[in-house]
């Protein structure tokens, strides 16, 4: 009889786990309740949604996940009917509540199939995604290999070795994440009853399931009173191993419990909470409730969807209330909506649309058709710019600081500034070229910002180094130097446009247009020079104020100086008559190359700040850009040579003095 009851409980507990219908996890109310749960991560209070997004981005290379039948591409996944795509939060919930399904999904992105070959997993495509189930059989080998490679100096590792290390990190992080509710899903009677001391048993129900919270509290009391030695031999080890594997390890993935003690700034992880329950006679009720109610969500699923929903809302509400009481809920909801509105993707699409319409208009310049196209293109471009500015503003509010403090933010900011300036230039050009340029710059910049985020795979709103926490200098020096970068980039792209235009368009009209564009380019170079110069000097003044030297020839400073020097060279060479149209454009393209070097290149010169793969990706992008720019410079030199040649040929009769 007793065994029968035991069997029933076991069955019940297994069934409970199966009872969360994956469809419930995509219910908007459920998702919204989870997304807005505050957590503490990387020194900052943020929504669970952000955690899910960047975890998925790091593991998967994207912030959402496509779902299809692995056997029949394009068809529905048998376990997830009606689902084409999972958002990051939906994926996290599936991993918590239905790991059996989530672990089948192709999650881990591996850039080079050799990395999985190393651990004896059957490789798929060269760059492909693997599920937890596919990697799991090799977990031991993966760990051994990764540990071995970790002993190699970071700069000496091969690409494949680095990928094995990051795959191991990703796999074990996800392993713990997908076990987040394993403690609640486990049958603790089967695991522990036999070895528990009588004193602990008497505090637990004689029949039916009991939670590890009750068990831990009884066991903690027993150990505190009688010492760990009073446990039967082997008991302590066995219980400890189970607790660590099922509760502590998965529980360490998130700091989700706001401490009841207001003086304590570090939020508690469920793994710490259970340790506290065992170690201390009294654990704050509010903290314990969050731990217990986390498991209650899973158990409530047995009573149907509505009960589940209620439990989810209760848990989320408790954490939010506790955070609010501490004054730490601040911008969590704003951040959820920031990501939901997806300002920069929307802006990207609109920039692209505006670019296409404006380009169509350029096919037949100076016609009515072109004017109408220009007017139409103007609308999406202005909306796109508004989106960009709005998104940047939201980030400022969430971070409580000026717009630029990280490399990712420089891309957003420079894109917004340069496309805004390009839009203003249209007022001077009045032929649609400014519009096309605006769309092109905006779309390109935002596309690159997206790629950069994917390469980096980290929260784009990190806490800052101590010395950077100064709103005055972030607002003045960083902002003006980035406006300078924007000017320099815009000038170099304008020059590339002119050089290309020159290759295809001829005739007196074209020459006049080119002249105008050249003057505009020159103006933009001056604009960039003004801001880079002031920004660079401001940086020196900041450095002098913060660590006592105005100028230290450090790579980042030198990078900024190089932009200023190049700007000055262009300015003086033109004033001195050494360069005219073509020369200006060639040097302005060079200015763009130098700007890219200062913007991204110098950061990669130092060692050990970023992972190998990341640096690798940046260098590749830089080399490609330099290659393209170099090509344009050659084109410019070609024009120049042609000019000379042409002149030389024409001037056979009347020699013209070379102008110095």
């Amino acid at each position: 009889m007793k065994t029968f009851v035991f069997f029933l409980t076991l069955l019940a507990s297994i069934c409970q786990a199966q009872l969360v219908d994956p469809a419930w996890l995509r219910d908007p109310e459920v998702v919204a309740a989870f997304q807005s749960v505050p957590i503490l991560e990387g020194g900052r209070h943020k929504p669970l949604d952000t955690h899910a997004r960047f975890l998925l981005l790091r593991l998967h290379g994207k912030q959402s996940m496509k779902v299809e039948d692995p056997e029949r591409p394009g068809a529905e996944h048998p376990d997830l009917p009606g689902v084409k795509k999972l958002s990051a939060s939906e994926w996290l919930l599936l991993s918590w509540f239905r790991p059996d399904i989530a672990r089948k999904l192709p999650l881990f992105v591996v850039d080079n199939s050799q990395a999985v070959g190393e651990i004896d997993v059957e490789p798929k495509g060269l760059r492909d995604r693997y599920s937890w189930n596919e990697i799991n059989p090799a977990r031991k080998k993966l760990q051994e290999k990764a540990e071995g490679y970790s002993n190699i100096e970071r700069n000496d590792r091969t690409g494949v070795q680095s990928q094995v290390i990051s795959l191991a990190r990703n796999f074990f992080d996800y392993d713990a994440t997908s076990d987040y509710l394993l403690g609640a899903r486990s049958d603790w009677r089967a695991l522990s009853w036999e070895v528990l001391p009588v004193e602990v048993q008497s505090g637990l129900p004689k029949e039916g399931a009991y939670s590890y919270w009750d068990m831990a509290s009884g066991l903690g009391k027993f150990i505190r009173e009688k010492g760990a030695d009073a446990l039967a031999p082997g008991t302590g080890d066995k219980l400890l191993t189970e607790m660590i594997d099922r509760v502590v390890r998965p529980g360490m993935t998130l700091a989700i419990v706001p401490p009841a003690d207001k003086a304590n700034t570090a939020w508690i992880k469920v793994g710490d909470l259970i340790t506290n329950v065992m170690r201390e006679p009294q654990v704050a009720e509010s903290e314990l409730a969050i731990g217990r109610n986390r498991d209650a969500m899973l158990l409530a699923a047995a009573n149907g969807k509505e009960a589940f929903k209620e439990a989810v809302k209760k848990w989320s509400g408790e954490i939010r209330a506790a955070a609010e009481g501490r004054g730490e809920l601040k911008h969590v909801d704003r951040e959820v909506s920031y990501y939901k509105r997806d300002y920069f993707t929307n802006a990207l699409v609109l920039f692209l649309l505006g670019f296409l319409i404006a380009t169509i208009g350029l096919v037949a310049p100076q016609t009515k058709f072109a004017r109408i196209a220009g007017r139409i293109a103007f609308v999406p471009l202005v909306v796109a710019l508004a989106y960009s500015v709005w998104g940047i503003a939201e980030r400022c509010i969430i971070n409580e600081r000026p717009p630029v403090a990280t490399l990712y933010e420089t891309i957003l900011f420079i894109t917004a500034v340069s496309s805004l300036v390009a839009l203003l230039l249209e007022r001077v050009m009045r032929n649609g070229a400014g519009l096309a340029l605006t769309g092109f710059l905006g779309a390109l910049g935002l596309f690159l910002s997206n790629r950069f985020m994917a390469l980096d795979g980290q929260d784009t709103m990190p806490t800052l180094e101590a010395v950077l926490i100064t709103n005055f200098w972030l607002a003045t020096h960083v902002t003006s130097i980035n406006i300078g970068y924007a000017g320099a980039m815009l000038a170099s792209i304008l020059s590339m446009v002119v050089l290309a235009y020159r290759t295809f368009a001829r005739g007196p009209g074209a020459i006049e247009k080119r002249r105008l564009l050249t003057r505009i380019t020159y103006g933009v170079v001056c604009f960039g020079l003004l801001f880079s110069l002031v920004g660079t000097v401001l940086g020196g003044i900041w450095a002098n104020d913060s660590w006592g030297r105005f100028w230290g020839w450090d790579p980042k400073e030198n990078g900024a100086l190089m932009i200023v020097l190049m700007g000055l060279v262009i300015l003086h060479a033109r004033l001195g008559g050494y360069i005219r149209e073509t020369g200006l454009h060639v040097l302005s393209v060079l200015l763009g190359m130098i700007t890219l070097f200062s913007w991204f290149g110098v950061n990669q010169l130092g060692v050990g700040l970023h992972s190998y793969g990341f640096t690798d990706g940046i260098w590749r992008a830089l080399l490609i850009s330099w290659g393209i720019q170099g090509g344009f410079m050659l084109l410019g030199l070609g024009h120049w040579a042609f000019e000379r040649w042409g002149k030389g040929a024409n001037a056979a009769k009347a020699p013209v003095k070379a102008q110095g």
Partner: protein
Amino acid sequence: MSSSSSQSTTNPFVLLFRFFSSFGLAVTVLSLLLVITLLGTLSQSDIGLLDSQRKYFDSWSVVHDFHVGSTVIPIWLPGGMALMMLLFVNMACGAVIRMRKGWKTIGVLISHLSIMFMLAAGYVSYLFKTEGALPLFEGQSGDLYQSYHDRVIEVRKFDAEGKGEATTLMIPMEDFMDLEPGKARTFYSKDLPFELLVTGYQRNAQVVPKQEEGASVIDGFGIQPVRVETTDEQNLSALVVTVTPKDGGAVERAILWEAAFEPFTVKAGKEAYTLSLTRRKWKLPFALRLEDFQRELHPGTEKPKRYTSHVTKIDNGSEQPQVITMNVPMRDRGFVLYQASFSQGTSGEQSVFTVASNPSDQWPLWSCVAVAFGLTIHFVMHLAQFLKRTLKPKEKAAA
């Protein structure tokens, strides 16, 4: 830029002036400065910041090795110092003396004068600036800051009771850093009863016990050169000094090492003299006592959010509490004290301050304001002109 004297002339002064005030010189110097900056930046990952600064930026000329495949092509280039001097002269001649003055060029004039002022500030700071570290444990007081890079040999006299004199003689690094093994130089002073022959300077070395006898082994120890670190602060230099008494007494030899625990002592009659190789030290006109060092972290991480030192300034017996924190240094009598770093050890928390004394400390700030002002005037004037020209006729046409 064209002036009344643009006719051909053979007057060498005119030609020289024309050369120094030309746009050609400006473009050449700026371009070379750009190249030097690029090379100096790239070289930092190999030779470190200090050496690249000395080689490329503080120098009159530099020979850069260009690597093309496996062949090395050495190219001579003017150094940063020479280029900046030339730039200064060029600006003075071209933009200040030669340029027509008027409302139209006022912006240009202001910005060139302020850039010249900034270069002058850099040169003054290069000549007269002192900068060093002042580390203090909680409760400890100090009024000395020691250079990060500058080494000196200190010679200090002690009387028969072992009481040291209030001043010490110093041999600056420039006088002995070239004395690699095989080169030697004698140092003397009327205040010293002996002469010092210095040789065998190593920029980074270990002093290790040596069993074998030999010329390089002194009292069981010898200098062992180590690869020079790219961060110069980590280098520990060493040298050999030979002490020859003026009265013809016995000659002594000793190793001096930056990391030695104690100085070498020379006995001369009843008095004694200590010799040591150390970082150059400067004295503040006041002392500082560290009362409390606080480190604030981002919650739940080990990432610092703010370092703060609560100190007491001891000035002629009067004590005054002060706070030094990130981005908020303490200034007094031309000295500026910054919160630089900290260390945690067995003896408690140690806060490290950077102390700087720079006569041209605030010059760049004034110059920056002026240059921004000047350039803004100039560019805005041009922009207005440009817009007027470009927009007007079209508007007329459109109307």
